[in-house]
C-alpha cells in the first residue's frame, strides 16, 4: 500500500485536434467520417468496417485504446438505430467516441466481447433496450428486463405505460404488439 501520485502515466490531456490527426494517420484506407462532439472526437463507422476499426484502435501503439467505457444504443427513428461506443486509453490518456449507425430494419453490429470483456453486459443492455443485435455475443439474454419480455423500452415508439399493462396483467391495450 503506497500513496503516491502519477506513477505510470502523466495526466496530460490530449487536445481533440491532435487526436484527430493521429486517428487519420492510423485509419487510412478505412472509410471513417470524423466529427466532434462537445467532449470527444467522434468516428462515424459503418457496421461492416467496425470490427476492423476497433482492432486498429486497440492494437496500434500510438492509439492503444484498451478500455471500453460505455455502449449506448440510440434510436434515430427514421435513420435507424445506432450504437455509440466510448473508448479510453490508459497509456496515452485520450478518449474517443465511435458511432455505428445501422440501416433501418437491419440493426446488426459485430460484438466486441472477444477484445473487450467489459462489452458483455453493455451489449446485452443495449440489445434489450433498443433492439440492436450484436452478432457473435456469447450470451444474448435479457439483462435488466424479465427473461421472457420481448420489448425494447427505449425505442421512441414504445409508450410510457404501467408495468401491469405491459405484462398483460391489466387489460388496457398497450397500443402496440409485442
Amino acid at each position, binding site marked *: *500500500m*503506497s*500513496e*503516491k*501520485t*502519477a*506513477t*505510470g*502515466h502523466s*495526466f496530460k*490531456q490530449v487536445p481533440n485536434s491532435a487526436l484527430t490527426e493521429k486517428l487519420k494517420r492510423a485509419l487510412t484506407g478505412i472509410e471513417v467520417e470524423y466529427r466532434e*462532439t*462537445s*467532449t*470527444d472526437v*467522434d468516428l462515424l463507422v459503418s457496421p461492416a468496417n467496425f470490427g476492423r476499426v476497433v482492432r486498429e484502435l486497440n492494437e496500434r501503439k500510438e492509439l492503444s485504446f*484498451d*478500455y*471500453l*467505457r*460505455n455502449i*449506448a444504443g*440510440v*434510436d434515430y427513428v427514421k435513420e435507424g438505430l445506432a450504437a*455509440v461506443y*466510448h473508448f479510453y486509453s*490508459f497509456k496515452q*490518456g485520450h*478518449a474517443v*467516441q465511435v458511432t455505428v449507425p445501422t440501416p433501418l430494419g437491419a440493426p446488426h453490429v459485430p460484438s466486441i466481447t472477444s477484445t*473487450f*470483456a*467489459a*462489452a*458483455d*453486459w*453493455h451489449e446485452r443492455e443495449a440489445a434489450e*433496450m433498443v433492439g440492436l443485435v450484436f452478432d457473435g455475443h456469447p450470451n444474448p439474454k*435479457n*439483462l*435488466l*428486463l*424479465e427473461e421472457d419480455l420481448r420489448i425494447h*423500452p*427505449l425505442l421512441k415508439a*414504445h409508450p*410510457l405505460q404501467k408495468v401491469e399493462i405491459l405484462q398483460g396483467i391489466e387489460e388496457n391495450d398497450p397500443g402496440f404488439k409485442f
Partner: protein
Amino acid sequence: MTVWPDESVVPGHAGGFDTVDMTINIGPQHPATHGVFRMALTVDGEVVMDCEPYIGYLHRGLEKLSEANDYRQAMGFWDRTDYLAGMCCEGAYCMAVEKLAGIDVPERAEYIRVMMMELSRINSHFMFLGAFGADVGSFGTSFIYAWRERERIYDFFEEVSGDRMFPTYFRPGGVAFDLPENYESRIRWLISSIRQGIDDFDGLLTGNEIFVERCRNLAPMTVERAVNLGLSGPVLRATGLDWDVRKAEPYSIYDRFKFAIPVGVQGDVFDRYHVRISEMFQSTLIVEQCLDQITEGLVLNPNLPKNLRIEKGECYVRTEGTKGEYSVYALAKGGNKPYRMKLRSPSFCNLSALREMVIGSYVADAIIILGSLDIVLGEVDK
C-alpha cells in the same frame, strides 16, 4: 448415496467420496447482497464452481423517464441512482446539461458543489465500511460506527438542502440556494468528526487480525485484466493503477486542489478496502481546501432561461462517482427534453466482473468479494 436424477456425479475425489454440484440461490431478498441482487452459485462442497448474477429487480427506467421529462424535472430520478451519494449523481447530471446548453457556473457554486460531492463520497464510503465490516463478521459494531458519522453528514445535508438522501440541491447553472450562515464552523467540525471516524474504523477493522487475514489475497486482480473487464474507481485503483477521473480528466474545479490518489498493490479485497479508507482522508483534504479558497458571490447563474431548450448537442461527461467512473452520455435534438440520456454506471461495470472473481473461492468468501465491490443496486439497475 442417492443422487438427484438430473444432477451429475463428479467421481474421483480424495477420500473416495462422490460429490454432487449443488446450486445455491442467494438473493434477491438477502442482506448480504446489499439490495435486490440475485446470484445463483454452483458449488462443489464449499467451493464456488460457477456464478450467474441476475440484476434488474430495481429497474425503474431512468433513461426513459429522463427522455419523457424536461431537464429540470428529470433531476429527481438521477438522485435515486447512487442513492448513497445523491449529490455526486446530481453533479454529473447537471454538468451534462450545462455542457449541452453551454451554461456557466458561478465560482462560489463550484466550490459548494465540490464540498457537497466530497462529503457525499465520504458518506458513501462510510456505508461501505459499515456494511463490509458486517459482511466479514464484525456484525453490528462497524455499522454503528459508520452510522454516527453518516447521521452527522446527513444532518448537514438536511440543513443545506432540506433533504437527507435525495437533496435535489444542484441546478443546471449552480446550486439552488446558498449555504447556511454557520457553514464553515459546521463543516470544520464535521471534518474533525469524520477523521475521528476514519481513525476508529482503522482501529476496528485494519487493526483486527482476523479481518485482515480474511481479506488479504482474496480475489487478486492484475491491472491488465481489470482494465479489460472495464473496472473503475477504488476497485481499479486497488490493482495499482493510479487513475482517477478527478486527476486524469479534471471536471468542475478539481484541478485546483492538491490530493493524492491512494493505490493498492495486488487488487485483492484488502486493497480495495484500504484504498477506500485512504480516499476518505483525501476527500477531507479537498473539503478543507475548498473552505480556504471559497469566495463570496452568486450561487446560481442569473441568466438562465425559464424553460431550458437545447437545440443540438452531444456530450459524454465523465465524473468520478463514489463507486467509479460515473458518466452521462447526453444527446439533445431540440425541445425542452433530452433526446437520449445514458448513464455509465460504475457499479454495473464492476459487478459484471463478479463471476470471474468468485469462481474458485469459498461460498463465505464470495459474499466478501461481492461486498468489496461496493455495489449500489439503484445504480446497477438504473
